[in-house]
């Protein structure tokens, strides 16, 4: 492959910044159409910088890479049980679904570890012909000097590190400093819209994972959100995912809350792991890895402009996260694909202007990505304004069900009054009704 043009510049048809879920998807699609693609990754290999819960959705992988299961993706377990665990101070109520559609192939989602998945995902881009450049950080852009200043390449931290291309797709992740440099958004991340997620991967034998989490065998897995006491009743949410021979246990808490209360993330996590309902699940396990990552939970209201002349932005860098549904990986992959399709179209026209690349935003709008982000645009604000969803209701659910399933030797009428009383003491019946309405409003986007 000769990437030097007549003047000795290194030139590609397209540059992708970041070999994560969005970036490798974009590179794969463009390379498959015959474009000469540079896929630049700052880590020593793809995935080195990535940390998530988490699970990956198959609908997105299939859309980018049809028939991907034949290529042996490094999954941990399919998600065959999903739900919520409500933690009170010393108890837990579980609400989860299993069986039915979750049991059937093709599975909707797989529990995954990124240090294994992302290299495989990038390999698929390489197999399609993309050129992976690892250990390389992009620090700036090259602008056309014709007066418009359109981006025509990137500056990396390598000696003579300029690389030229008529179109650059930025998939730099949550710390979107390059996106900010291009003034596609006028501010850095807002602590009140950003969650700091931190987790431990804890080793357990596959047999112990199965028996402790009620899974019949290694081809069953669990993905749950944990609310309530897990985040000290503050805005935040925990999670548990079963890997093959380990479990991922962690939580996300809004960054402004951590700063306001001066909380140490690892102390909250340790408290969570010592919770009487959680500790037996991980007992005897050995810590394999601890880590932390930001999640841009502002969604719609923090989205940058996703295109300008010669540039498109996809994934976390563009705040493509649906915080309530833990979606983000799927949006990243599909947005990467849509950006790639737009780049292919631009190449066929020989026009990389903002006008041509605006088709990327049209494509996002036609799909669930912009529709969902718009619908949920008020949801993170809702949680800020309704802390009771993190504190009061999980505790109430525990008390109520605990009461329901206990005998106590007293009349049932009195018991139900006590259960209702447990809610009204905490919140007030009209307030509670109002909470339900405003939650509906936040979710439905009214």
């Amino acid at each position, binding site marked *: 492959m000769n990437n030097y043009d007549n003047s000795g510049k290194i030139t590609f048809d397209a540059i992708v910044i970041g070999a994560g879920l969005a970036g490798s998807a974009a590179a794969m699609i463009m390379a498959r159409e015959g474009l000469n693609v540079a896929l630049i990754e*700052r*880590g*020593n*290999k793809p*995935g*080195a*910088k*990535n*940390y*998530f819960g988490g699970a990956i959705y198959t609908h997105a992988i299939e859309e980018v890479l049809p028939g991907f299961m034949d290529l042996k993706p490094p999954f941990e377990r399919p998600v065959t049980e999903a739900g919520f665990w409500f933690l009170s101070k010393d108890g837990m109520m579980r609400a989860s679904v299993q069986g039915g559609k979750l049991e059937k192939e093709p599975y909707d989602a797989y529990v995954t*570890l*990124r*240090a*294994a*998945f*992302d290299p495989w995902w990038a390999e698929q881009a390489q197999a399609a012909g993309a050129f992976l450049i*690892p*250990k*390389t*950080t992009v620090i700036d852009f090259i602008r056309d000097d014709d007066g418009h200043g359109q981006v025509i390449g990137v500056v*990396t*931290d*390598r000696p003579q590190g300029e690389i030229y291309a008529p179109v650059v797709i930025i998939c730099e992740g*949550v*710390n979107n*400093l390059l996106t900010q440099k291009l003034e596609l958004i006028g501010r*850095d991340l*807002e*602590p009140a819209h*950003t969650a*700091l997620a*931190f987790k*431990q991967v804890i080793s357990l034998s596959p047999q112990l994972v199965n028996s402790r989490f009620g899974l019949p065998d290694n081809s069953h897995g669990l993905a749950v959100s944990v609310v309530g006491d897990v985040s*000290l*009743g503050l805005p935040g949410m925990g999670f548990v995912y079963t890997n093959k021979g*380990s479990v991922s246990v962690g939580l996300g808490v809004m*960054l*402004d809350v*951590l*700063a*306001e*209360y*001066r*909380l*140490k*993330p*690892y*102390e*909250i996590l*340790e*408290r969570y792991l*010592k919770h009487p309902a959680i500790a037996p699940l991980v007992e005897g396990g050995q*810590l*394999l*890895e*601890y*880590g*932390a*990552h*930001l999640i841009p939970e502002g969604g719609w209201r923090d989205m940058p402009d996703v295109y300008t002349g010669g540039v498109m932005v996809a994934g976390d860098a563009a705040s493509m996260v649906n915080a309530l549904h833990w979606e983000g990986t799927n949006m990243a992959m599909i947005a990467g694909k849509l950006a790639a399709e737009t780049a292919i179209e631009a190449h066929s026209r020989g026009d990389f202007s903002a006008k041509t690349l605006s088709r990327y935003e049209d494509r996002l709008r036609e799909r669930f990505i912009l529709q969902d982000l718009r619908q949920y645009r008020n949801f993170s604000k809702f949680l800020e304004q309704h802390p009771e969803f993190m504190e009061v209701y999980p505790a109430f659910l525990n008390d109520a069900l605990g009461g329901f399933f206990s005998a106590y030797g007293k009349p049932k009428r009195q018991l139900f009054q006590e259960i209702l009383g447990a809610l009204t003491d905490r919140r007030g019946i009209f307030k509670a009704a109002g909470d339900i309405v405003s939650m509906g409003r936040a979710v439905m986007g009214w």
Partner: protein
Amino acid sequence: MKRNDAFGTRELPEELQESLQDVYVDDLLVTLKYFVDENQPHLWIEDQDICARCQHKPCLYFCPVNVYSLAYDGTIQVSYQACVECGSCRVACPYTNIGWVLPRGGYGVAYKFG
């Protein structure tokens, strides 16, 4: 310019505060793989005088790997070698007083599990 007056000012109920578990952070850090760039710190304090005037110093708490600590002379010490490049400090320093760039290509944290 101060970003958020509420940082450091709120308190948990005593019972919750006491329920937090002490952690020896080095026990967590030993599980992480790093390629440390000895020549070029990618984090720094822009102006120690601003830190000296910062009443609550939330960076001493929210950093998930305890990069920031108070030195004997009262200045903020930056152990950039432990950084997992999450970005919290850049975003949540009340005075935007933390210099933050990505490590040079290939350096910094390299997750083994992710």
